[in-house]
């Protein structure tokens, strides 16, 4: 039969072939084609066995994994417990950029050739979520290629593993040229039964949106992911192409400054500290209009801080807050700002879908209720560092709870104070004692039911206190030529081992 090739493109490229040298989600998703983790996400993002066939907690801080037998690496080496231990050790090396991905793991011990224990700092409910992002490398290959130590894109350490990959995954890397393209060929000895029919994947990054679309339309590509929103209509209406879309896990929200002063009004009390003001800001935004006009009906408006598939989501939290400019004005007046106040709004313009447009719309809506908004947008390169330094009054945040895919990530990063490893992205200094407590309890709760309840409760408090103003769930939109079937996932990963081409 003729070789089935899938040619596809995305705006970003693979950073490195060393899975422990980086923390980039796109590269992680690409390397998943080459490596397997112990547990992986299935067709519905559920955790399922991969290189481990089963697991149990032998102690609250020790998990035992039974490994799959007869698995071979691409170079023919057999897969054993030694590989897992070597991989975990490599990832735990202080020099590993991705060490934070398993921050709670303290070590791995070989029990026998096909059994491994993984030890955590204490009870840790999200170990499997974390392990889904830990790809297993080949110990012998690493020894042979002097790659036992991890690479690190930050410190500039490279090893043979940075440009060569030897995994157990469904595809092998044939060639890897930054910005020009990476070619994968099928691994005929994959342990799993392939659900794809591909022989070859040609990945070509194309940074420019318009070019990516054009290349699809001219027949040079089979799949583009993502496809720019404003072109979906045209692609959909061209014969021979179709658009596939789904809401993504990524939630777009506005972060509010909880410091004593606003940058826009130095020397005065920060009006945003008043709950009524925050509610007014929320009521003043016409999310329906944004959805219809800016997002072309592709987004899903939301009232909470996590997407439905993510643990911690609750329908009760998600109801719309309601667009009501009159009420907003009233609330402002009640709070003592009858003629509004001044604030700055900062947004990236190349990070989220139509980010700048959304912000202009919001600035305009706020101005109408009296909140004079000075908008500044900039590139992600300068935007995020400034956001991290807390330089903004109101700013746009996107959160997808990745990689763990769990509501706990919102609590731990966005809703807690910046200390003890918490509050990593909470530069706006929101703080609520109840949430602090719930977060710390949920962190060690192994009972999934209880844990979820805590998440839901914390997120309800966040909504009630208007910690953030959630806007919507971004869509994931891809475009393919007819005959290509690729399943989409809300985490925006492209998993081509589910793809078929005709």
């Amino acid at each position, binding site marked *: 039969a003729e070789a089935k090739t899938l040619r596809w493109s995305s705006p970003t490229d693979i950073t490195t072939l060393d899975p422990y040298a980086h923390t980039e989600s796109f590269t992680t998703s690409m390397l998943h084609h080459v490596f397997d983790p112990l547990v992986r996400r299935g067709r519905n993002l559920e955790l399922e066995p991969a290189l481990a066939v089963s697991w149990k907690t032998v102690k609250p801080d020790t998990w035992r994994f039974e490994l799959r037998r007869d698995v071979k690496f691409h170079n023919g080496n057999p897969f054993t417990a030694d590989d897992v231990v070597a991989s975990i050790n490599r990832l735990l090396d202080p020099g590993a950029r991705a060490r934070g991905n398993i921050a709670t793991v303290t070590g791995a011990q070989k029990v026998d050739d096909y059994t491994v224990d993984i030890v955590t700092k204490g009870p840790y409910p999200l170990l499997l979520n974390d392990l889904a992002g830990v790809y297993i490398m080949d110990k012998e290959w690493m020894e042979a290629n002097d790659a036992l130590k991890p690479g690190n894109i930050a410190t500039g350490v490279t090893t043979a593993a940075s440009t060569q990959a030897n995994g157990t995954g469904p595809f092998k890397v044939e060639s890897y040229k930054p910005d020009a393209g990476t070619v994968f060929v099928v691994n005929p000895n994959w342990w799993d039964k392939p659900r794809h029919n591909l022989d070859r994947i040609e990945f070509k990054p194309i940074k420019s949106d318009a070019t990516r679309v054009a290349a699809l339309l001219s027949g040079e590509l089979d799949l583009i992911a993502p496809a720019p929103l404003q072109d979906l209509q045209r692609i959909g209406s061209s014969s021979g192409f179709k658009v596939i879309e789904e809401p993504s896990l990524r939630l777009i929200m506005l972060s509010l400054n909880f410091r004593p002063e606003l940058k826009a009004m130095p020397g005065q009390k920060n009006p945003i500290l008043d709950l009524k003001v925050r509610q007014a800001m929320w009521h003043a935004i016409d999310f329906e209009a944004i959805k219809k006009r800016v997002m072309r009906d592709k987004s899903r408006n939301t009232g909470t801080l996590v997407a439905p598939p993510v643990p911690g989501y609750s329908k009760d939290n998600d109801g719309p807050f309601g667009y009501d400019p009159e009420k907003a004005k009233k609330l402002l007046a009640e709070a003592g700002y009858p003629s509004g106040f001044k604030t700055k709004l900062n947004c990236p*313009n190349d990070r989220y879908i139509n980010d700048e447009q959304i912000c202009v719309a919001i600035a*305009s809506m706020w101005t109408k209720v009296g909140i004079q908004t*000075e908008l500044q947008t900039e590139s992600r390169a300068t935007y995020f560092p400034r956001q991290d330094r807390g330089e903004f009054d109101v700013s746009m945040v996107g959160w997808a709870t990745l990689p763990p895919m769990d509501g706990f990530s919102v609590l731990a990063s966005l809703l807690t104070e910046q200390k003890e490893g918490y509050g990593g992205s909470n530069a706006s200094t929101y703080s609520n004692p109840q949430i602090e407590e719930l977060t710390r309890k949920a962190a060690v709760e192994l009972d999934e039911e209880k844990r979820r309840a805590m998440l839901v409760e914390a997120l309800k408090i966040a909504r009630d206190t208007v910690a953030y103003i959630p806007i919507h769930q971004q869509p994931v939109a891809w475009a393919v030529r007819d005959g290509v079937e690729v399943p989409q996932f809300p985490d925006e990963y492209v998993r081509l081992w589910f793809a078929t081409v005709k």
Partner: protein
Amino acid sequence: MNTLASAPRPVPRSLLSRIGAPISVIVAAALALAIVGCALMASWIAPYDPTDLASFELINAELPPSFTADGDARFLLGTDNQGRDLLSAMLYGARVSIAIGGGAVFVAATLGVVMGLLAGYFGGKVDAVIMRIADVILSFPTILLALLVSGIARALFPNAATAEWAPLILICAIAIHEWVQYARTVRAATMVETAKDYVRAAKVIGLPSWRIMLRHILPNVMSPVLVIATINLAAAVLTEATLSFLGVGMPPTYPSLGTLIRIGNEFVFSGIWWIALFPALTLVILVLAVNIVGDWLRDRFNPKLRVKR
């Protein structure tokens, strides 16, 4: 006996023909003036104030021009993706673009000409220093220089409003990069002119160097400068759009012509052609007109060509 005979031609000559400009130049000048004039008076003639955030509705976004089948009578040229009246946005945008483009070209050309004259006239160490500074500048793309300039400006004036400072920052950022082109061109021409007898004659008179450079050499090296300047006008307007996109320029609530073109470009695929087309047309017309007038001016600079037509 005296043959300096003013031929009997006392036909009254109109002002225009006295200037001696052909129709095309007059039309071009009129167009350029019209665009600049409209831009300057944007706040009076624009039907809406696109910089007033409260004045537009997202619901009106992407309405086609009023003269098309499903246009809206309120918006002559349609609306942009935020529901702003495109005509008003263009008028205000042209003001920004002309100020920044014109300003940047002016600053860059002035600086470049001065540096080029110095380097070409004095040669030796002066030349080496100026040209190596130029090489340093050339090593940085405008984008980085703009980030640097705006970063420093922001550090110095943390509370300055962006919309007011942005044009200055942009002019600086673009000019800092662009002067080199003028400098090197002028330097090359100056090296040639400096060896000519008229410059030597000026030296013998004892004129100071600056005077020789400005009065004697400058008019003789201006012609490539004018060419580059008129062309760079377009480039500067477009650079402004790029820089604004990077967040060092005008805020998105105050779009320039270039920004409108950039935004509009994203929508061309989906059949929303007017957002890009009208601003682009304005820019093309402006650049074309400026170049035509520039050409003519340049020819007027050359006395040998002056009396022709």
